[in-house]
């Protein structure tokens, strides 16, 4: 768990200095992914870098698992926090195995354990250890290098992971793939992740919570569904875009709307197209529009009828005070 309390950074300047991060407070629960979102220069990266003390706060505090980080030695502190940057920053003079072993080596692990850990992480990130362990970074593609960057951050199994636009330099097709892999991995590892992004779609896809920044201030801190359903102000509404309802569909699952307003049983609409309870509403909307129907059947993975999905139920879900139904789980 990470808690920011009135965190402020003022860079001195000729005009007395404006706050680049201004009294930001929020809390990220253990195992949650929080995306810091906003236009460039809004203070999101500075906020991230104050958590591992790459930037010293002017005032305010950061607590990690209840402990005040200003009391810790910054070098020791950073070894307990995974850090991934957009430029990846793999050390060109070290092999993939050595790069992954950087933090374990700082923590004096023995060689065999470092090697085992590197193998384990590569396998988890869908890179064949036998093929990649002894390669140098200049022998990797962009996507492969970024996976190694993530593996390196996870090497010493830190409870907290800071990611500064980690997938920003990867091409759009590979970005989707790496995002999906990361979500799958995060489901198993449950790290507390702070993730900087300027891409609203990425934020909606990855986040349990989104912190949206403007000019150093936290404008809204909410689950994606609530942020999109009820933007706190004009700025948030325009930043998330006029198609925010369409974006919301991604984060609402069929199980939330099945049998909703209309009710019905397996005899209703026997020929209607089928969806799975784990599909999101983008699939439902697509079927409504493509097939010109008003009702879908929801069938689980074993082929059992679960219920029906109606247009009214979807509309009711979208109209419901977002958040009242709880954030959809990752």
């Amino acid at each position, binding site marked *: 768990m990470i808690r920011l309390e009135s965190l402020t950074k003022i860079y001195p300047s000729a005009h007395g200095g404006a706050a680049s991060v201004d009294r930001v407070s929020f809390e990220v629960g253990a195992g949650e992914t929080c995306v810091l979102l906003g236009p460039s220069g809004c203070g999101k990266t500075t906020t991230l870098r104050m958590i*591992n003390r*790459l930037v010293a706060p002017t005032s305010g505090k950061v607590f990690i698992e209840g402990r005040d980080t200003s009391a810790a030695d910054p*070098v*020791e*502190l*950073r*070894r*307990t926090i995974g*850090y991934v*940057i957009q*430029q*990846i*920053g*793999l*050390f*060109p*003079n*070290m*092999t993939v195995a050595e790069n992954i072993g*950087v*933090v374990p080596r*700082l923590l004096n692990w023995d060689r065999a354990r470092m090697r085992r850990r590197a193998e384990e992480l590569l396998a988890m990130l869908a890179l064949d250890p036998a093929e990649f362990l002894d390669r*140098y*970074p*200049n*022998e990797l593609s962009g996507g492969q290098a970024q996976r190694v960057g993530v593996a*390196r*951050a996870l090497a010493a199994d830190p409870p907290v992971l*800071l990611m500064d636009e980690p997938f920003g330099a990867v091409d759009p097709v590979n970005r989707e793939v790496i995002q999906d892999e990361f979500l799958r991995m995060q489901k198993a590892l449950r790290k507390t992740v702070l993730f900087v992004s300027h891409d609203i779609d990425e934020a909606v896809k990855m986040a349990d919570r989104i912190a949206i920044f403007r000019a150093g201030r936290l404008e809204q801190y909410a689950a994606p569904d609530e942020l999109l359903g009820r933007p706190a102000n004009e700025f948030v509404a325009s930043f998330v875009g006029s198609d925010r309802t369409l974006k919301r569909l991604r984060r609402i699952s069929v199980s939330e709307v099945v049998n909703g307003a209309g009710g019905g049983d397996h005899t209703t609409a026997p020929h209607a197209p089928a969806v799975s309870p784990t599909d999101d509403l983008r699939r439902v909307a697509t079927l409504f529009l493509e097939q010109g129907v008003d009702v879908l059947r929801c069938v689980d993975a074993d082929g059992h009828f679960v219920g029906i999905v109606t247009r009214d139920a979807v509309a009711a879900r979208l109209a419901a005070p977002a958040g009242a139904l709880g954030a959809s789980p990752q």
Partner: protein
Amino acid sequence: METLAFILHNLPAIGERTVEHVSIVSVAVGFAILTGVPLGIAITQSQRTADTVLYLGSIVMTIPSIALFGVLIPLLSKIGQGIGYLPAVIAAMLYAQLPIVRNTYTAIRNVDPALRSAAIGMGMSTSQRLLRVEIPIALPVIIAGVRIAVVINIGVTAIAAYIGAGGLGTFISRGISQTDIRQLITGALALALLAIAADYGLLWLQRRLTPKGAAERAG
């Protein structure tokens, strides 16, 4: 033919002079590495200090070596070392500073800031960052500076024969004073070969010490 006969006759003397020459150059470059590399790293912290240090280094390079020896004679006479080995080493070391300091400074400055940021962010201390990341990456360029320093010093040490430091320059200075073309050619030839050999030797070392991953992608 005459020159060849002279060389064959004087092989032991040539060997001895070569050893003297190499000894002056290696001691001077050795000290220049010990002082120049840390200095080059230190000045990356401040642009102003860097400019000043590199400017001073350039001024030293413009002093003709014969003039530098002239300046060192009265200074070192106070400890009874006005001529000979010591002033030769000191002068050579001064000339070796600039290429080593400048190359170290440039190489460390050119290390990708993202690597520095990643190293600090992962919890490396300053010395760990320098030893594990920045110096290994900068090493080929630092060695390139050492190569330049060595070649310059082989030339400077040849002039040091005039202040009695010995070395291969002795053949040249005697060849001139005795108008003996054989000695002149012998000295010039030996110096040229020494410079080429040293340069190739260090080039080999530079390639050996280039981190594998930092070399051009093979194939």
